[in-house]
Every structure is written in structure tokens, then in C-alpha cells.
């Protein structure tokens, strides 16, 4: 693959990491803990997110290990309930929701729009502290006995029937919610008010558009789950009767409020990932994203439609049949903007000069797995099939195809793509390509059998199952082992590359974004002087002309 590559590294014998950069500016732990710099906060997030990811991953390992055999033999059944609940809580609230926005979004949005920082640096730091407070509270919960309601905190189970740490877990989610609200708010303000001269809305990279749409969701949807959690907490502690059926409350109302957030939340999780994919696909096929405007608006459309479909999580919960019809129909609509994105990426590839660096392999993984995940979502959106498939392993597989196959692939793609910008060094290409392929294979082994299990009728959230399902479960557990290797590899070689990686130079991928036109790692203020956006977005000819000019200046 060495002959077909776009990688352009500086001469390694003379290249140096720039002495002045955001990493070297100040030293000491306090300079990190009190920083207002969006790039440093992004690094803080990256480290803490990875920590929570591996805790959530370890819990997933326990689940798969338990399901290796039909009997509940590894742990007691109520321990199993706690394990899958904590897996869900940690992965959703402390990894998936903040994953791309808090790390890559934080790092890149100001650079992409030509600003020195996010509009509200202190609020940005505050949201990291809130995130950590919530995360540590969740860990404390886990250490002191866990919670077994499932990550959905469904009433009246969570208010009346379980005696585990619902309160602290709820509080952890509540705090993490505010962290996410502040991140979203910060992004919206920044994108509106901090753009460099010439950076009009339709010159924004699609990464920024996707984050804008996700931020709107964060700001508008999160408070509703916050109030739902507050009401659950009040019901548990002082016994008010808003969701309590014995007092006249309606438990389904909790689900309405909960899913009003938690359905848009999956778009909060996936939209930033789609933004990453747009950047990566364009860069590695050397073409402007096909149908830029359509892709930009499809992000916004997903955000808007995302608000009108929440009750498709409740088809079997006792909502009215007419509401089921309406919500089922609206759910189909979301498929349209998602498909627009997939088709436009495919057309971007068409006749492009494609190269297969690691971010691109992950991006291909994303496109395939997300498409499968999305299409199986249609099965669940149709009320007829949903009644058969919901609460089975089909739904588990669907969700993991979209979130792990989609979002996690996008996250890894983005981390590899911008790693040279964040650290100034390249990751080792060969082994990372291997890791990407291992992840893809492991993923399919893990989750594809679960589609079959689900259609055969294996319910989720049980520690034991009929013996005839064992063979597929063994497949799934074996795949999870491979998947685990695929996730551990990047940690090892990325840490290794911090010291031994090749020096990347400003723009190893020959990408067009403003973030690539400055040194790596960037200065604290991002740019030496305020950039002016005088060319179109994804304009590779402009980039070539620019580099010609620089060469002439250098030789003159």
C-alpha cells in the first residue's frame, strides 16, 4: 500500500516538533486542571473517556462471559442485572454521548472555524468537571452495590421495587447531563459568534454542521430527562405521586419524558460521528463531499425529525394504538436524511483517488455497519415487527450496530485522523490498519449472531437462556474477545507513538480544513494571525496552489 498513499511527512532527520505549542506552553498538573484551552480540555476528556470506556468494556466482557453457557453460573442473576445496567449507564452517559463532541469537537471546532477558543472556556472546563463528578459518582455507585433497573430507570421498577442505588446513579446521569448541556451550548455559541472572516455557513466543514445539529439536541432534549430523573428521585425519597400508579400517577409518563431525551440522545451520539466520516471520506478520496448542502441539511433534518419519534421505544408499553401509528410513520422519515448521508458519501468515493489509510478503513467500517444498523432500525420502527422483535437480542444487536459499529468506528477513525494534529506525531500505520480490520471482524462476530438470536426469540436482560441458543452465543462471546483485542491495540500503539511516532508536520493528509493549515501540535491561540477563509470548503485545488506558492517562497 506504500505506493498509493497521500501521506506527506517532512524529512524525519531534520523535522522537529515545534517548540511552542499548546502542550509545552505550561507544565504541571495544575496547568491542566485549571486550563481554559479547548485543546487541553479535549485531551482531558480523551483520557477520562478512555478510562470509562474500558470500565464499560470490562462489564461487557463479564456479560458475554456469563452468556457463554445457558445456565446463570458465573454470577448470581441479580448481579448480572447490575452488570448490564452499569454497562449501559457508563457506556451511554459517560462514553457515547460525550465521545466525539467532547474530544474531537472540543479540539477541532474552534480551529475549523478559525477561532482562538470556544466562546466560553470556563464553562467548557466546568463541563469537564461535571463530567468527572458524574463519572466518579457512577463508579462509587458501582463499588457500593450497583443498580439493577437497566439504564432506562423505568418506573415503577426504579421508584418502588428495587432497593439498589437508583438515587446516586440518577444523580450521576443528571450531572453528566448538565455537562453535555454546557458542551452543546458552548458549541452553538461558538459556531454562531466566533467564525473567522469569510467563514460563511456554507463554507463550514461538515464536521461543524454535524456538531451544530447535535448541540441543538443536547440543549433542547437533555433538560427533559433531567426533570424526569428529579421526579424519580423525589418519588423514591419523599414519595410524591407523579409516576406512582397506586396514587394515580402514570408510569408511562416517565417513559415519555425519558425517551424525549433518550431518543434524540442517539442522534447526539451518532451525528458527530457522521461529521467525522464526512471529513475522512473527503480527504482520502481527494474530492469535495458530494452534495455538500444536502449532507449539511440532512444533519439538521435528523436533529429535527429526531424530536418527533421518541415513542417508538414504547410501542409495547401501553401507549395508544393511534399514537403508535403516528410515531411509526414519523420514524420512517428519519431514514431519509440518514440515507442521504450514506448515498452522498458513496458518490464522494465514486471516481475519487481513494487511499486506504487507517481512518479510511474505519470509515468504511462505519458505512457498512451503520447501514446495517440503520436498516434493522426500520424493522423496529414498523409497529408490527417491533412487537415481535422488541426486548429481544435483535434490539441489542441493532443498537450496537449503530452505536459501536457506527459511533465507535467513527470515533476511532477521527482519533487516528486527527492524532497527528493533536500530538504532532504519526501513529504506526501498519499495525493500526491491522487493528481496524480486527475490530471490524470481531464486531461482526459479536453482534451479527445476536440478530439471529433476536429473531429466534431470545429475550434480552436475562442471565440464562434455553440451550439451543448456545452455539450463537458462543460465537458472540468469541467475537467479543477479538473485539477486545481490536480496542486494546490502539491504546498501546497510540501511547507508543507519543514518543516514537514519526513527526507529522503540519498537514500529513494533505487535507483542506483550516485546522491543517497551522502547526501540529497547534499553538495555544491556534493561529499565528487570524485566518481568512478566501476559498471554498474541501477545495483541493486551492490547497495545491497554496503549497506551490509556499515552495516558491521557500526557494526564492
Amino acid at each position, binding site marked *: 500500500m506504500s505506493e498509493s498513499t497521500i501521506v506527506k511527512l517532512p524529512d524525519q532527520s531534520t523535522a522537529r516538533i515545534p517548540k511552542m505549542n499548546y502542550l509545552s506552553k505550561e507544565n504541571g498538573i495544575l496547568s491542566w486542571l485549571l486550563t481554559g484551552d479547548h485543546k487541553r480540555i479535549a485531551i482531558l476528556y480523551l483520557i477520562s473517556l478512555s478510562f470509562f470506556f474500558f470500565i464499560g468494556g470490562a462489564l461487557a466482557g463479564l456479560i458475554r462471559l456469563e452468556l457463554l453457557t445457558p445456565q446463570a453460573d458465573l454470577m448470581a442473576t441479580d448481579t448480572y442485572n447490575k452488570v448490564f445496567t452499569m454497562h449501559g449507564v457508563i457506556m451511554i452517559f459517560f462514553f457515547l454521548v460525550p465521545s466525539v463532541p467532547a474530544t474531537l469537537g472540543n479540539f477541532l471546532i474552534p480551529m475549523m472555524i478559525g477561532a482562538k477558543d470556544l466562546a466560553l472556556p470556563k464553562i467548557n472546563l466546568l463541563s469537564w468537571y461535571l463530567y468527572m463528578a458524574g463519572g466518579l459518582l457512577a463508579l462509587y455507585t458501582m463499588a457500593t452495590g450497583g443498580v439493577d433497573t437497566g439504564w432506562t430507570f423505568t418506573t415503577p421498577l426504579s421508584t418502588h421495587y428495587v432497593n439498589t442505588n437508583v438515587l446516586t446513579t440518577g444523580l450521576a446521569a443528571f450531572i453528566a447531563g448538565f455537562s453535555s448541556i454546557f458542551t452543546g451550548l458552548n458549541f452553538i455559541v461558538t459556531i454562531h459568534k466566533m467564525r473567522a472572516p469569510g467563514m460563511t455557513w456554507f463554507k463550514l466543514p461538515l464536521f461543524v454542521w454535524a456538531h451544530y445539529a447535535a448541540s441543538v439536541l443536547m440543549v433542547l432534549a437533555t433538560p427533559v430527562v433531567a426533570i424526569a430523573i428529579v421526579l424519580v428521585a423525589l418519588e423514591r425519597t419523599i414519595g410524591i405521586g407523579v409516576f406512582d400508579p397506586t396514587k394515580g400517577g402514570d408510569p408511562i409518563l416517565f417513559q415519555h419524558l425519558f425517551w424525549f431525551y433518550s431518543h434524540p440522545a442517539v442522534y447526539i451520539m451518532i451525528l458527530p460521528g457522521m461529521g467525522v466520516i464526512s471529513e475522512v471520506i473527503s480527504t482520502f478520496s481527494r474530492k469535495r463531499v458530494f452534495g455538500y448542502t444536502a449532507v449539511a441539511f440532512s444533519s439538521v433534518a435528523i436533529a429535527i425529525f429526531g424530536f418527533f419519534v421518541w*415513542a417508538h421505544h414504547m410501542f409495547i408499553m401501553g401507549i*395508544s394504538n*393511534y399514537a403508535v401509528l403516528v410515531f411509526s410513520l414519523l420514524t420512517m422519515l428519519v431514514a431519509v436524511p440518514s440515507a442521504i448521508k450514506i448515498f452522498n458519501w458513496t458518490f464522494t468515493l465514486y471516481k475519487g483517488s481513494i487511499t486506504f489509510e487507517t481512518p479510511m478503513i474505519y470509515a468504511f467500517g462505519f458505512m457498512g455497519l451503520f447501514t446495517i444498523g440503520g436498516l434493522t432500525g426500520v424493522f423496529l420502527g414498523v409497529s408490527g415487527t417491533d412487537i415481535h422483535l422488541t426486548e429481544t437480542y435483535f434490539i441489542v444487536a441493532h443498537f450496537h450496530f449503530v452505536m459501536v459499529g457506527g459511533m465507535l468506528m467513527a470515533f476511532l477513525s477521527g482519533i487516528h485522523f486527527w492524532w497527528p494534529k493533536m500530538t504532532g506525531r504519526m501513529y504506526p500505520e501498519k499495525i493500526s490498519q491491522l487493528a481496524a480490520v480486527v475490530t471490524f471482524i470481531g464486531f461482526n462476530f459479536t453482534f451479527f449472531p445476536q440478530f439471529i438470536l433476536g429473531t429466534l426469540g431470545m429475550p434480552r436482560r436475562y442471565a440464562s437462556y434455553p440451550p439451543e441458543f448456545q452455539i450463537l452465543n458462543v460465537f458472540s462471546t468469541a467475537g467479543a474477545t477479538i473485539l477486545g483485542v481490536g480496542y486494546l491495540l490502539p491504546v498501546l500503539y497510540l501511547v507508543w507513538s507519543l514518543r516514537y511516532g514519526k513527526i507529522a508536520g503540519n498537514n500529513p493528509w494533505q487535507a483542506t480544513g483550516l485546522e491543517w493549515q497551522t502547526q501540529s501540535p497547534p499553538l495555544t491561540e491556534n493561529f499565528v494571525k487570524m485566518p481568512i477563509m478566501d476559498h471554498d470548503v474541501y477545495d483541493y485545488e486551492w490547497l495545491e496552489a497554496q503549497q506551490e506558492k509556499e515552495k516558491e517562497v521557500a526557494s526564492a
Partner: protein
Amino acid sequence: MSEQNAHAQHAEGKHAHHIVSPKTYALILLALLVGTATTVWASYVDLGIWNPVIALAIACTKATLVVLFFMHVKYSSKLTMLTVLAGIFMFLTLIGMTLADYISRAWGQW
């Protein structure tokens, strides 16, 4: 930004910082007090189904006055207005779509 520029922008009425006069504030206060008195008075009169309608209409009027004048939205950028409208829209979506379930639950079952 030069002084000229600031003037030019003010003429456009975009970013210029509009200072609302105390007289306006006083008038709004008066209107709010009248509204409060009216809504209390109306609550003692039995108007059947119109009682809540009138109370909410008065409340909406009062809230609009506060938003437009005390919160300066009347003099703010389009973006601020859009933000307020987005809030109202999402609020109505939450209520409307949830009610879509509740009002139709008993349909066909009587």
C-alpha cells in the same frame, strides 16, 4: 471597530445596544399589574370552560410583555428571537406529541 462603524451598525439596528427607557419599564410594570388584577378577578367569576382559557391568555400576554421589553427581545437580533421561538416550539412539541398518546388512548374503547 471604529466609531463610524459602531454608528453604522446602530443604524442597521443589529448589534447596537439599545437602552430601554425607565418610562417604558414603568408602563410595562403597570400593564403587568393590571393583568394580574384582571386574572385574579376573572378567577372568581364562573365562566365555565372559558376560565382557564382567559387565565392562560392573560398569562401569555404578561409573559410576552416581559420577554419583549424586560428581556429586550424586541430590540435584539433575529437570532435571539429565533432562540425564543425554538424554545416555545420544542415546548409545544413535548406537550403536543405526549398528548397525542393520552387523548387517543381510549379511542374506540367506549
